[in-house]
């Protein structure tokens, strides 16, 4: 886990250092990924991460937060997400309450005021107090700007949100500031946050958003990399079994499936096999645990018919 104060200077000095550091935090990655974090850190640009589900997009943000020992602020996107849930909201209950209080004490405030004009000017002394930061409920984006020591902002599954929301993000992503009509422009307090956006590609992200981000595509890892990932995540598993199971997963990815198993499934499966004290892959065992890696009955049936060949290929 992270030291009390990681040596940021040293970590971010080169891509290699970053990579080693990520690996020390049990995130095994390719050079491409490390380069992305490196550039994002130095250029202060958000990263838009795309790729099939389960390749560690969200995990990268979490690990980076861990590595830099910064708080992670997460905004989960969904259809209908709007500025009230993402940026700020007025504490309208509190506002109403204070209005009531003011109403009751109105006599005191206006005591001695001569004429309407003076009353109004006295009321003006309250200014726009109801629309000050006191009455503002910060939501993730604003919180990220207000974080004292900087933070990692994760905007998860941005493709699930609406087009309008994407436009809302633009100001934040390019200038690290937010405009609130009643108050003005809020800028990042100290360090602007390091922003990660993830997308599963359920729809095209608009060009405007893409233009403001680095674009990182994380594909499924190759055999060797995935083995190292499993080694990092499930270190107890014997090397031979690790090799076999990763190979098997790779065979599966070559098939025409509704949903191919991702890295997270490989990890789950490795844990399952470990729990069952497996030493080598056997067709019967694979059949019993297939539901860990395949999430559709249709896929399971398809694979079942070819299970023996697949297993023997993995054993080679």
């Amino acid at each position, binding site marked *: 886990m992270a030291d009390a104060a990681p040596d940021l200077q040293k970590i971010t000095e080169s891509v290699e250092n970053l990579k080693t550091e990520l690996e020390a935090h049990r995130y095994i990655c390719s050079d491409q990924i490390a380069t992305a974090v490196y550039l994002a850190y130095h250029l202060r640009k958000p990263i838009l991460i795309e790729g099939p589900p389960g390749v560690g997009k969200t995990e990268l943000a979490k690990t980076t937060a861990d590595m830099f020992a910064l708080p992670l602020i997460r905004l989960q996107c969904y259809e209908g997400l709007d500025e*009230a849930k993402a940026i700020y*909201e007025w504490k309208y209950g509190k506002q109403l309450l204070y209005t009531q209080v003011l109403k009751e004490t109105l006599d005191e405030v206006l005591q001695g005021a001569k004429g309407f004009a003076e009353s109004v000017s006295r009321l003006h002394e309250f200014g726009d107090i109801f629309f000050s930061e006191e009455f503002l409920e910060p939501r993730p984006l604003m919180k990220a700007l207000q974080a004292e020591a900087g933070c990692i902002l994760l905007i998860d599954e941005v493709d699930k949100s609406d087009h309008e929301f994407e436009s809302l993000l633009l100001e934040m992503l390019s200038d690290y500031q937010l405009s609130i009509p009643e108050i003005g422009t809020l800028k990042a307090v100290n360090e602007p946050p390091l922003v990660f956006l993830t997308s599963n590609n359920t729809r095209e992200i608009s060009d405007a958003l893409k*233009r403001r981000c*680095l*674009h990182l595509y994380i594909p499924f890892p190759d055999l060797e990399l995935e083995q190292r990932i499993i080694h990092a995540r499930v270190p107890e598993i014997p090397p031979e079994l690790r090799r076999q199971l990763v190979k098997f997963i790779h065979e599966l990815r070559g098939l025409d499936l509704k949903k191919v198993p991702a890295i997270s499934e490989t990890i789950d499966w490795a844990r399952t096999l470990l729990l069952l004290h497996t030493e080598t892959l056997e067709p019967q065992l694979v059949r019993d645990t297939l539901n860990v890696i395949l999430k559709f009955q249709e896929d399971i049936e398809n694979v079942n018919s070819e299970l023996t060949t697949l297993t023997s290929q993995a054993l080679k």
Partner: protein
Amino acid sequence: MERTLTNFIHALRSSDVRVSTAETLDAFNAVELVGYEDRGALKRSLALVLPKTADEKETFDLCFDQFFKFTDIRGDRDGGDAEEAANESSEDAADGQDGEGGAGGDNPPTRGTADATGKRKSKSKSKGKKAQTTAPEDADPEEEDLGPGKMSKPSSELAKLLMNDSKVELSIATAQAGEAVGVRDIQVFTQKGLYTRRIMEQMGLADLNREISDLRGSRRIPQRRLGQNLRQRREWLREQVRDYVERQFLLHADADGRRLREELLRKVKLSNVEQRNFRLIQDVVFKMAKRLAALHSRRKKVFKRGQLNLPRTLRHNMSYDGAIFDLHWKSVKIDRPKVFAICDVSGSVANYARFMLMFLYSLEEVMPKVRSFAFSSDLAEVTELFERNKIEDAIAKTLRDYAGGSTDYGQAFVDFKKHCLDDVDNRTTIIILGDARNNYGDPRTDILKEMYDRCKRLIWLNPEPRNSWYVGDAEMRKYTAYSHQVEECNSLMHLERIVGNLLKTVQ
């Protein structure tokens, strides 16, 4: 240095990667950070900044490999290439020399070499990496063997350059000559030879030729030896320049040419599209469909319906002293349009049906509910076929199973009524694609009227030009009466316009 990067971005743009000015600036920042030394790191960094989709990344990979074609910064992989060049040059050295040697005599000396040296320094870093091979050292086997030994000094600029063995300087000179003759404007592959010659001339080929022929005519052995050597090197240089032009062509012209072809394909009559262009036209269809989808996916929502959004309403009405005055609703998506496509797939119309189906199914994002029917005499639903197969396969299967047989619109309408007239409701748009040539059969306009009454819109697309609609066995006149809209439709442009309008009206 900066020029290299902008040139690369230009090349990317011409291969359909959209790079904005802002991204160009980002690229410069990234490069400043990473530097040009490590090719891998450079590629990875630019890959993050410039291409923004998975497709673009693939294009980027290709482009990068072509553009920054330097594996040897230190000049390691000389051997193989040099030998190849030597072998090739030895074969056509003899006939090449005679023709050009004579003509070389009265050509004026080249300009540009002097100022080239000035610019050289700024570019040397990047272009230097492109340097490939040294000139072959072995003597030409077919020549008289003069053996190794003293050679006289070369006199012309290019000859000095060649004898310097400096790959870096040579490739810089090549690139500069390329710029000077505008090799980036190369359009079609037949121009490759032309540009190769122009670049060579720009580099001072004439001087070199004259020098070689002088030297070879000389009686002194060191001069003859130099002449021979220079001749080999000239052929090698020609090879290098040809390579360079080839690369430039792939980078710049290929994409432009493709765009030109695509532009033409959009306008050509679909029945005239040749088999070999099908793949290209498919790409065009997908591109157009994607653009339409992007255009229309933005207005799927209406706000004035659905559930009351209480917090938002309260908040917005605070300025009216809490009186609920300005109502806000939770947004609700409206139903997406239903489209029924009925396609005549008999011989004459099959191609149009192919592309229309392709178009409709490429629009899945904004039109998820397409049901399609194919007929020539009997009508059948092919929706499922499209769900299970890839578009191209499904279309091929449809055409195989349903095409052929004489067209019978009457029968097709009867079948349609039997199968699914009940599913047609007031949100449905029916598109019928056909030439309405019914072989003088019963047109069954009564069923078409029924469809017309039930659906929201009935659009008839006819691939024939308007003036032949009412000629011969065409029943267009009768069918027009029961269609909301009839359109001529025989090119991708028509298709795009019609589908675009469709999306506008149905939403």
